[in-house]
């Protein structure tokens, strides 16, 4: 059953608003709570969801869907080549793909448009290199760890929005290297002093 569109309501008092509020350049007061509002409404509000139904296989020998053998195949998956019925056909970036290929792509992180979470390895590396300097004894352990982490995640995907991932990793590597050099110098000095 298609979802019924809900009317536009005032964000403050949830009072239902009339169409005279829509797409005005001026701010208008809500008749219920007098909060000043500006509302832009777009045609998607009135768009009806179309439910696609897969047709049954009518003729013996007609190609059936890989996932629903009783349903008539209408397209071929652009990724794996399996026959798909109208129900299994997912329109993705203008390509026809099956749900299994879509899920595989999402799990392997190959489809950026389906990525919902990313770890900022560059920031973790910077934090690992910089924060322990407050209690500098910790850098004995954290500096090599930061260096290793930065190199390990050099090719890991970063944020999907523009950022300074590589620069941050380079900074982390430089700081961690300096800390390691400091410790090496310290131990060398201890040995020489004896």
């Amino acid at each position: 059953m298609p979802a019924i569109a809900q009317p536009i309501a005032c964000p403050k008092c949830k009072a239902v608003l009339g169409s005279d509020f829509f797409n005005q350049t001026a701010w208008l007061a809500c008749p219920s709570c007098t909060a000043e509002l500006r509302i832009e409404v777009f045609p998607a509000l009135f768009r009806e969801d179309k439910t696609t139904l897969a047709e049954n296989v009518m003729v013996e020998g007609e190609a059936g869907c890989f996932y629903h053998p009783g349903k008539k195949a209408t397209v071929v998956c652009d990724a794996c080549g399996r026959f798909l019925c109208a129900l299994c056909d997912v329109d993705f970036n203008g390509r026809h793909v099956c749900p299994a290929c879509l899920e595989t792509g999402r799990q392997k992180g190959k489809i950026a448009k389906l990525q919902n979470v990313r770890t900022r390895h560059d920031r973790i590396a910077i934090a690992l290199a910089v924060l322990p300097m407050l209690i500098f004894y910790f850098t004995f352990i954290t500096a090599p760890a930061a260096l290793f982490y930065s190199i390990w995640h050099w090719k890991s995907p970063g944020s999907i929005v523009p950022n300074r991932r590589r620069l941050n990793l380079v900074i982390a590597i430089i700081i961690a290297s300096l800390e390691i050099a400091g410790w090496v110098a310290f131990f060398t000095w201890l040995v020489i002093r004896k």
Partner: protein
Amino acid sequence: MPDAAPDRYIRLPGRGNSRKGGAFIAISRVSSRLWLGEDHLLQVESTGGYSENYKRFYFRDIQSICLQKTNTWLVINLVLAIIAGLLFLWTLTVRDSAGRVALGIATAIFGFFLLLNLLRGSSCICQLKTAVHLEELPSLRRRRNAEKVLWRIKPMIEAAQGSAPAETIASQYAALLANVNAMPATPGQFSRLADPTMSAYRSRAHRMLFFALLAGVVTDTLTIFFPCVLVVLLNMITGCTVAGAVVIALVKQHQTDLKPALRVLTWVIAGFVAIAALRPFEKPWLLADLSITAALAGIFGTAGLLLLRQPRHERKTTP
């Protein structure tokens, strides 16, 4: 199945924080930013800066964008101005140079934040509606930023969906209202849309709280004029009842459709109860303290009961 081409994003103005986690106290603060993609808006929520969560709002799916002016800007300005002003006056009265410098620095800090808030401009709430969710955009809590973003994305949404003339939108909206059996609100008439995330308020906790406050007026008055062990004991029992009732009321009002004014009043009463319980003034100010407490309890109790009466009247006019 790799992507055909990765999206190119342009950063949109505004940055905001939202609370995540507990019902009353935030478990974590999440920083949000909006980015403009080719065919969608991307909301990037960053927790601590080490992890990012993405929400995509495709232009073809956006049904409406609603901006609502808020008083947050004004309230913050007022609070900062009062604090800065008081600190400045205090600085003038202090004769010790070290103290003057310390207070001067504190005044400058509050003055700086006041100036910053003034420059950031008036505040608002921005809600984006699609067929499946209604999302508040925390990065657009300043009117200037919200209008800039709206001005920028409106042509892109119209390019994705096509633009409709005002008459078409009005007729289609009238059909939608008829379909869900709703009437637009008019001045003096109340018509609230059911919020699926909110449950209907059906508790007597607030009524109990306001009656307990009025009972507190009586016991405080008795304590002023007839101070004896029995009256003081009665006053203590009333105080405990008010404290218990305010906690219950706060729990009961959570995620309900209770009137915003009543919700705010309950929080104000919670603050009042906390301060009153401390009894900041002992003799010779105790009488004045009791009088003020009784007066405030009377105001809060009466205001609360009057506000509680209103929903009944409103329910009658709801279609």
